[in-house]
């Protein structure tokens, strides 16, 4: 194995970055906040000072703490400069790189203590994480030489020289790894079944569809550490005896597609893909298949149809893909994060992995935090970490002095967790008991300004739109559910409607063809279970407590924004606005909902009764 690695390292021999180098976060959120422009500005400054030959500027994948983006890390000190703009490039090069001065105003300060946190290790956001899957994300550039300098492909070399396919599967079984795509099926058992299945050829598919609108860990892994996914796939291929792999990536992730293409080309060149890998007699190649915008294609049978180039219609199981998958051949389908777990397991042993996490859920889980949370981004923690630790200790809690209301996990197939669940250990079983699922790990945090009826309506609208229409239960059931929720949100609901929702949910769960329909009621049932009072307020009092549902919300002036200028008072034709202390107030009995004040206010302080109804998706 040592010889193999040396030979391999010679083939990809890259230069190690010098001690002094700069690392820029090139994740998609940072890109959307202008990191490209910052990068160009830094390169210009390096040129200016004739430093380009000396100091390398590397672009890594997502560093995870998106609130800090765009971010530049100066090595060897590891100092993190955050929220950069083009203007900051000059001062960093002049001040820090040349002058050796720390630029305090560009450093992150603790949300509570205001203490300066210079390096990643100083931030609670990173200190409390255990980064196995994200070991390379945002740490190294997504290229083969960097990957290899961090033990990359050592697991593959070990497997090909020291382990039989059966032993690889045993190691995975021992690790207790379960699928990270939502279902939580034991990966080792899946591989074993595919190994034992009969077929002329076998396939490995990496599911990179990441359909949950609010999850982005798979994207970050594919972009930030594509080789870990490839290595996991090759190992899977070796274990089950497959010769061909497909990575199915959603079209909305063009950067992931590009990074994977580059990685595949690098791996082929290094004899890590293709015929006779590392001259050990095993052949395996990988092709990318790009989706075209259909949530149901994340479901494994639909995904197989899509890989075959047709409509992504799901089909009944059994037969399961492990016996009849792509082109009717035995196929292993695993999620991106599942596969990224494989190399460290093979390298360190299943035993090592099984010591992380809880009794039934081994290893770590990456959560994608977004919504009303201070530090949105990627957080990887051992399974069994509590929701409170993730939201409050790692991600800094809720911004703007608002109250935590709920965390939605599992997206359109999941449910919500409330204040009562804050001390719940996050793992497959306890989330299921709480009426949600761990899902892919998307975790959207909601505060007091979020209406749970509206959230249920949002997900029902999503499921209705994404229902493929093949089975009637799902096609019509999701539509009826949405209609009832719209009725309730519009103040026309009755208490019988709640019972109707529950019986529809039952029907969808039992009679739908695939997981989309079967799990579509989850967001509704879970909000009904935990926030029934809020539904009842909409029904009995015709009131939306969070002030979101347009038909049940009156005009209000947001105190925190009102500057007391009085323009609204002057324009109001109904004389409904009067001064109250420093700010103004609208008398709901006099207000005629004309919205003149909304348009007049220069500070966007008046929250109007919105005309909007259903979210039009097109």
């Amino acid at each position, binding site marked *: 194995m040592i010889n193999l690695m040396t030979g391999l390292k010679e083939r990809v021999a890259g230069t190690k970055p010098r001690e002094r180098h700069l690392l820029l976060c090139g994740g998609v959120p940072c890109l959307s906040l202008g990191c490209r422009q910052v990068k160009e500005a830094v390169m210009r400054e390096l040129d200016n000072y004739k430093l380009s030959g000396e100091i390398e500027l590397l672009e890594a994948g997502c560093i995870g703490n998106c609130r800090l983006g765009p971010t530049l890390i100066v090595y060897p000190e590891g100092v993190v400069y955050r929220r950069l703009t083009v203007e900051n490039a000059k001062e960093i090069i002049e001040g820090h790189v040349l002058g050796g001065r720390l630029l305090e105003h560009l450093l992150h300060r603790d949300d509570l203590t205001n203490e300066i946190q210079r390096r990643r290790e100083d931030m609670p956001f990173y200190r409390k994480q255990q980064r196995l899957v994200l070991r390379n994300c945002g740490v190294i550039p997504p290229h083969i030489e960097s990957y290899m300098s961090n033990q990359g492909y050592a697991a593959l070399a070990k497997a090909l020289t020291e382990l039989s396919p059966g032993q690889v599967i045993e190691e995975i079984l021992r690790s207790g790894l379960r699928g990270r795509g939502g279902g939580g099926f034991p990966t080792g058992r899946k591989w074993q079944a595919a190994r034992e299945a009969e077929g002329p050829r076998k396939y490995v598919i990496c599911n990179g569809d990441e*359909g949950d609108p609010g999850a982005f860990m798979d994207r970050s892994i594919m972009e930030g550490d594509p080789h870990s996914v490839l290595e996991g796939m090759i190992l899977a291929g070796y274990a089950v005896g497959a010769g061909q792999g497909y990575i199915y990536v959603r079209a909305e992730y063009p950067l992931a597609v590009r990074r994977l293409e580059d990685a595949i080309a690098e791996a082929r060149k290094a004899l890590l893909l293709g015929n006779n890998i590392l001259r050990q007699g095993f052949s395996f190649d990988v092709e990318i298949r790009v989706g075209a915008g259909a949530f149901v294609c994340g479901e494994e049978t639909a995904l197989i149809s899509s890989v075959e180039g047709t409509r992504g219609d799901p089909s009944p199981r059994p037969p399961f893909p492990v016996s009849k998958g792509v082109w009717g051949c035995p196929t292993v389908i695993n999620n991106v994060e599942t596969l990224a777990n494989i190399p460290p397991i093979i390298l360190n042993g299943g035993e090592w992995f099984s010591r992380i996490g809880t009794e039934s859920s081994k290893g770590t889980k990456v959560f994608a935090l977004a919504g009303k949370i201070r530090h949105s981004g990627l957080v990887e923690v051992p399974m069994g970490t509590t929701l409170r630790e993730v939201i409050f200790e790692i991600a800094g809690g809720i911004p703007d002095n608002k109250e935590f209301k709920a965390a939605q996990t599992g997206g359109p197939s999941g449910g919500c967790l409330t204040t009562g669940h804050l001390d719940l250990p996050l793992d497959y079983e306890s989330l299921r008991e709480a009426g949600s699922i761990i899902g892919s790990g998307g975790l959207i945090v909601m505060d007091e300004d979020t209406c749970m009826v509206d959230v249920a309506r949002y997900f029902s609208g999503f499921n209705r739109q994404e229902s493929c229409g093949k089975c009637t239960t799902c096609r019509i059931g999701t539509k009826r559910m949405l209609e009832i929720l719209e009725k309730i949100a519009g103040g026309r609901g009755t208490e019988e409607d709640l019972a109707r929702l529950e019986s529809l949910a039952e029907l969808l769960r039992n009679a739908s063809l695939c997981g989309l329909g079967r799990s579509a009621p989850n967001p509704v049932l879970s909000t009904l279970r935990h926030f029934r009072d809020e539904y009842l307020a909409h029904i009995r009092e015709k009131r939306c407590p969070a002030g979101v549902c347009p038909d049940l919300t009156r005009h209000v002036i947001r105190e925190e924004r009102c500057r007391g200028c009085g323009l609204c008072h002057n324009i109001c034709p109904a004389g409904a606005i009067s001064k109250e202390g420093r700010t103004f107030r609208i008398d709901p009995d006099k207000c005629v909902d004309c919205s003149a004040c909304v348009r007049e206010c220069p500070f966007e302080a008046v929250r109007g009764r919105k005309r909007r109804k259903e979210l039009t998706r097109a």
Partner: protein
Amino acid sequence: MKRTAIKRKEKYQELDGVLEKYKGRKGVLIKALSEAQEMYGFLSREVLIHIACELDVPLSEVTSVVSFYSLFKTEPSGRCHIEICSGTACYVKGMQDLLETLEEEINIKPGEVTGDGRFGLSTVNCVGACSAAPVVKIGDELIGDVDSKRLKQLLGKYGHD
């Protein structure tokens, strides 16, 4: 060959370059359609017929695939195409305000094109930049942390032809 077929062949020479590599291969229809859309911006009926003929797939199958996937467009968009992300994080952080702003400013709803053909608008299920929500995509550029004011500025910036 019929005259119309000859004319079609001439018109779609560029596309044929792409289709050539897919001929006789399994499972490539989605790829071929994506590349054609990339080339022309949308998939006209004529393009679909051409693809069906060249790849020897029934037109009914081609259209069934096109209508299944939301990314395939059969109508042209505006010269500047705006996508508003409708993922959960973007929804919670006010993407509907952005849709309203666009309706007020340029009188356009998702799925429509402005009268002057300048802007087209659609929603997208999630671009995975949830931590910078709400997110807007204009052409190929992704812009995060957008509010109504910023969106209006962007309209000005991208609105010139």
